[in-house]
């Protein structure tokens, strides 16, 4: 069992096989956690398809499985994992973050208040929002 932290949240992936550099997952589990699917034209998420590296296709996709770590490196996105390989973070690159911010559309998020109720930034559409960070430290 591997815990996978992605942009959309935390996913438990029962069939994942982690090693020092690879994270092989069943295609169905990879899709559930990340949205990426293997197709004839390459690996796709929504309308975006990325061709597999010529001659090295099986380093990313093999026998109905996807190596998510290799995919993330191929995409140029950060991937880090715990020493035992039981927790992996599939992050977003600075390039993508910067492009998203350049649209000036505030990226949505969902965070809990102290009672556990989840608030989304988009719940406050129609108001001006001063989004301000603080900390007890």
């Amino acid at each position, binding site marked *: 069992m591997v*815990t996978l*932290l992605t942009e959309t949240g*935390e996913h438990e992936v029962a069939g994942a096989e982690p090693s020092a550099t690879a994270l092989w997952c069943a295609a169905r589990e990879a899709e559930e956690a990340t949205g990426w699917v293997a197709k004839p034209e390459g690996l796709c998420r929504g309308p975006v398809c990325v061709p597999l590296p010529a001659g090295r296709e099986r380093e990313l996709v093999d026998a109905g499985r996807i190596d998510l770590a290799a995919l993330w490196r191929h995409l140029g*996105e*950060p*991937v*880090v*994992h*715990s*020493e035992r390989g039981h*927790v*992996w*973070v*599939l*992050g*977003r*690159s*600075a*390039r993508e*973050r*910067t492009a*998203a*911010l*350049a649209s*000036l*559309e*505030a*990226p949505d*998020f969902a*965070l*809990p*208040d*102290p009672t556990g109720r989840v*608030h989304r*930034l*988009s719940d*406050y*559409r*129609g*108001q*001006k*929002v*001063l*989004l*301000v*960070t*603080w*900390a*007890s*430290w």
Partner: protein
Amino acid sequence: MWQALYEELAGHRFTVIAVAMDSRDGDPLPWIEAAKPTYPVLIDRDHRLAELFGIVNVPQAVWIDESGRIVRPAEPAGAYEGFRRMNRQTREMPEEEARLTAQAKSTYLDAIRDWARNGARSPYALAAEQARAHLPAVSEDAATAQAMFRLAQALFRRGERAEAERWIREASRLYPDSWCIWRQGAGVNELGLAALPDFWARVDALGPARYYARVDMPGMP
């Protein structure tokens, strides 16, 4: 500070959303109970906001208009450097530094008032090109550091403290500009503040560089 402003501007389709960048378990709760805010206060243990908006310190704020557009990217929310020149035993601030600190705060709060009342007509609500020019620069190392920070938080939640702390240190090494990351790995004093000698040494090492970036507003020190 935000409660009074929130009440003052509540009739102008304006709200404050305060987000606590505390990662230690239970940490922000007594502070929230003491302040009794009526605006939303959210808890962001994984520092998702830092990733999404390029936030590196507190207090930093982003202004978002009614349609969800950023009109001022992340910048210090009225905070100023004066504390660097205070007496570290008595916590007294030289008069001039206290004056500038108060000026930064009042300039910033007045700018918010102007924006809440006048919306896009406010000179403080940046037009698209200007807003883009004010976006924080994020490096690929910073993006990797944020992934490490998230990994560390997941390990903390599982009780795997030693490894989590190693990831925080590594994240801070990769992304030294982030005080949010550094402080989560730093020691805290008897008041619960990360203001031990290691904090001051790190602040002093900035030399002439700012701890709080200068906010680009007329009248801001």
